[in-house]
């Protein structure tokens, strides 16, 4: 695969000479690596929380199809402190949902450091959409 020959070929020069930065240069690769690491950590952390939640579910004899409790942020800390399955399960699910947004935030910082204003704008807009989904869902909830 071509991906295993870094710097070996650059066929992307198809006229627009303004942009030397393909996904091939080392700095960009650093960003890809840190994002990859973040995704790995976020995913493993989420799964670890869910595994604890599942163990507690099994220990308490809760079936997966029994209909779980609705999400309530005010109860989260209490549930976690009392080692109730709902606490770990919800924290794990929140970590799942938050990981991609964290990835975008880290990309934003990475692109800002490299002075890629267009990509910074793109990342910021993606985060705006995520915030909008929270706000809209909250507004419709009540």
């Amino acid at each position: 695969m071509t991906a295993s020959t870094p710097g070996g070929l650059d066929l992307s020069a198809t006229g627009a000479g303004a942009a030397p930065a393909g996904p091939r240069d080392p700095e960009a690769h650093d960003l890809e690596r840190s994002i990859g690491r973040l995704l790995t950590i976020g995913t493993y952390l989420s799964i670890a929380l869910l595994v604890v939640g599942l163990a507690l579910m099994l220990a308490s004899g809760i079936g997966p199809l029994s209909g779980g409790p609705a999400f309530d942020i005010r109860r989260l800390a209490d549930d976690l402190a009392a080692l109730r399955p709902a606490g770990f399960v919800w924290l794990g699910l929140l970590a799942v949902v938050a990981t991609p947004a964290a990835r975008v935030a880290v990309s934003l910082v990475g692109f800002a450091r490299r002075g890629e204003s267009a990509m910074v704008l793109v990342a910021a807009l993606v985060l705006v959409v995520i915030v909008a989904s929270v706000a809209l869902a909250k507004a419709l909830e009540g």
Partner: protein
Amino acid sequence: MIDSLLLVGGGIATGLFGSLLGLGGGILIVPLLTLGFGMPLLAAVGVSLICVIVTSGASAAVFLERRVANLRLGMTLELFTACGALVGGLVAFLLPETVLELLFAALLVYVAATMARGLRGSSDDSPTDATAESAGTGSDAGFVARLSGPGYRVRNVGLGAVGSVGAGVASALLGIGGGLVKVPVMHVLMGVPLRVATATSNLMIGITASASAIVYLLRGGIDPYAATPTAIGVFLGASVGSRVVHRIDLRVLRGLFVAILLYTAWRMLQRAIA
């Protein structure tokens, strides 16, 4: 106990298939939960959205590390998929279950047809019709060049954005990653090599499904106890899948998948009519 383990097992199977075929797995998770475990479709979609985010996270890191995924292109297109997903997430709660079931059955047939066609065609990894280059104006050309990668130059970015909105809506309504829309959009319309398109689509799934999963979560559409064992299973399956994908002859797998999809479509149709 048994149900939990069955869900973990089902999750492993769907996660494995999903990451091997670049489909996020949702296309099998929803039928698994509705037809296999009797869950309502909307609840299954909520669980599936969680699972496809996990799949994306588990596989995307590997793809990024191998430098197959195109980060800039993915982030640009996911702005549009996230918008579509937000709208779709809101609309999903307004549609009757039967409509969603019919849509899902149609989706299954569409995917089966796409895959069956792929079985006969070659597994060519080069972008189609690379000559049709649409050079934009100054700054636009620079941005497009930055979205391009080694050996290919993206084109039709506008059409790609429209297709991405559609992928986002489909993802939110049906609990899928939307790879079946994004991969053809990137590969055929935008001239991205198939492997890059698949990896990039996989990376985008996370934020796409997040936008709608947040809506589902806050509106009570995600059952945490059903989501947990399924997501754990999917994670295990996807982790294995993304590590062995380059060693497997996908044609055999696709053939098997077509059969499964058609059977599932038939069952889903029966459910919608019943």
